[in-house]
């Protein structure tokens, strides 16, 4: 029963997380994480071999806020948005007062000219803190299935 409760809470967190990014509410994105959370995007190739590089590697919430500030104020990229499709949410562990969860995702990128293409697929490997008022990611490892990023990766996944 507890496991089912966790499943519901994690699914809901992921849905809210995707809605935040897909509605361009990026300023609210870091609030899905604990203060010292680690957010990293890598590839299945690197992950399988233990190669530590990140395409994005933010070690706390301040770094996530810096990334959003950079996207808003400094970086130049064509207007675009994402549509996350998240499925196959699994609870894979319950250790150290954290829930370990895995979910599959697809992200379609929609450009301003109307073109919409499959941008990335992959899986989230999450450590989730359920003890607080709202569930938070204590760690989010985004593992992309492919090594290839089309053009650039501005908006977080």
């Amino acid at each position, binding site marked *: 029963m507890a496991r089912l409760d966790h499943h519901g809470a994690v699914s809901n967190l992921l849905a809210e997380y995707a809605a935040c990014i897909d509605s361009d509410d990026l300023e609210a994105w870091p609030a899905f994480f604990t203060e010292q959370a680690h957010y990293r995007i890598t590839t299945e190739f690197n992950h399988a071999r233990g190669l530590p590089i990140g395409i994005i590697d933010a070690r706390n919430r301040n770094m996530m806020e810096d990334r959003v500030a950079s996207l808003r104020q400094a*970086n130049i990229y064509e207007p675009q948005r994402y549509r996350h499709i998240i499925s196959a949410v699994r609870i894979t562990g319950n250790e150290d007062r954290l829930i370990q969860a895995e979910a599959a995702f697809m992200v379609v990128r929609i450009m301003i000219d109307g073109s919409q293409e499959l941008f990335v697929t992959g899986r989230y490997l999450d450590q989730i803190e359920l003890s607080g008022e709202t569930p938070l990611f204590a760690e989010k490892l985004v593992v992309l299935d492919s090594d290839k990023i089309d053009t650039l990766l501005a908006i977080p996944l």
Partner: protein
Amino acid sequence: MNGTRIHKTSEHWPNEGVTQVPYGLYDNSEIYARERERLFLGPTWNVLGFACEVPNPGDYKTTTIGDIPVVLVRGKDGSLKGFENRCSHRGSLLCLERFGNAKAFTCVYHAWSYDEDGNLVGVAFQNGVGGEGGMPDDFRREEHGLRRLKIASLSGLVFGSFDFGVPDLDDYLGPDIVARIRRVLPRPVKILGYYTQTLRNNWKLYAENVKDPYHASILHSFFTTFRVNRLSQQGGIIIDGDGAHHVSYSKLDRPNDSGHGDQEYEAENLRADKDDFGLKDPTILGGQDEFDDGITLQILTVFPGLVLQQVRNSLVLRQIMPRGVDRTDLIWTNYGFEDDDPELTDLRLLQANFIGPAGFISMEDGAVGEFVQRALPGTNGETSVVKMGGDAVASSASRVTEASIRGFWKTYRGIMDI
């Protein structure tokens, strides 16, 4: 217009020379084919990767020279070898994995088999079955080896060439470039990870972009936006003798040159920290003066498709791989050194946020070439303007120059004969 005629197209190279570059070079399939023949199959050195990627006998790595599939192999005697990744029988790819280990290289199609030198050592059913069929008596296996690569290494970086008449690697690079490659590869390399950025533009638009210091502080506004005061006003452009390769670098101002690099990094750090407009977490701006020369940024290119990058402590080999007239794969290999302590490795990983497809100071480069590519349809016969810094192809203390782009085209024109 009476410039040199390029192929059978309407493109002409203007008589003004490399201060004007015909836009037609970026979307012309005949030019693309000629580049394959003259540049990538010709007398150029193309980087294949790091020697440490194939550490043991039989280890191999598949990659490409231009868009031509090749294999880099570690031989039984420890030497590095290379050959085209194409069976001499019916032309199938031989190796399909990115990395692997093999005693022999056997084609999946008809099981023709090659040794590490590319010699054909086995032909399935060469003598037929039951006295019927098989190869004719005059078939000689030694006449059907794989096309081999000339291989050369520098500081653990491995290069290959299809043309055995290519100059020796040191001569090809020149002493300035050799020294600057050695600078960022002083010790055995440890790979930190890979990713590939697919660019929707001709490969030469990225080659030009990375040789273009003029755009850096304009297109990439991360440092100026966050008011990170750049002490580093020193620096410059080094262009090798004939213009093919270049180094752009900047350096902390270190007048007494007494090894205070780390302190200046920290001072820079502090300034950003105190500034309300700075980063909430400025640790990314820290760093170690690991090469003990105060240089915080070095972008090095080797014609045609190698980029070796130091952005603070982020070290990367980038390979520019043509994938069609208007497609390019940019392969990023992040590296450090075997003897890095955990703090330095951590710093490299943190500062990798500056670079790559999501990089604070590089993501724009993934799109700007495409912006040019998409605007090509109206350019019939026109040229771009490459006159910043005059018409010289020479080293300079100023980075407000397009001299290294002109150097690229000077070399390109020579090899392409256009």
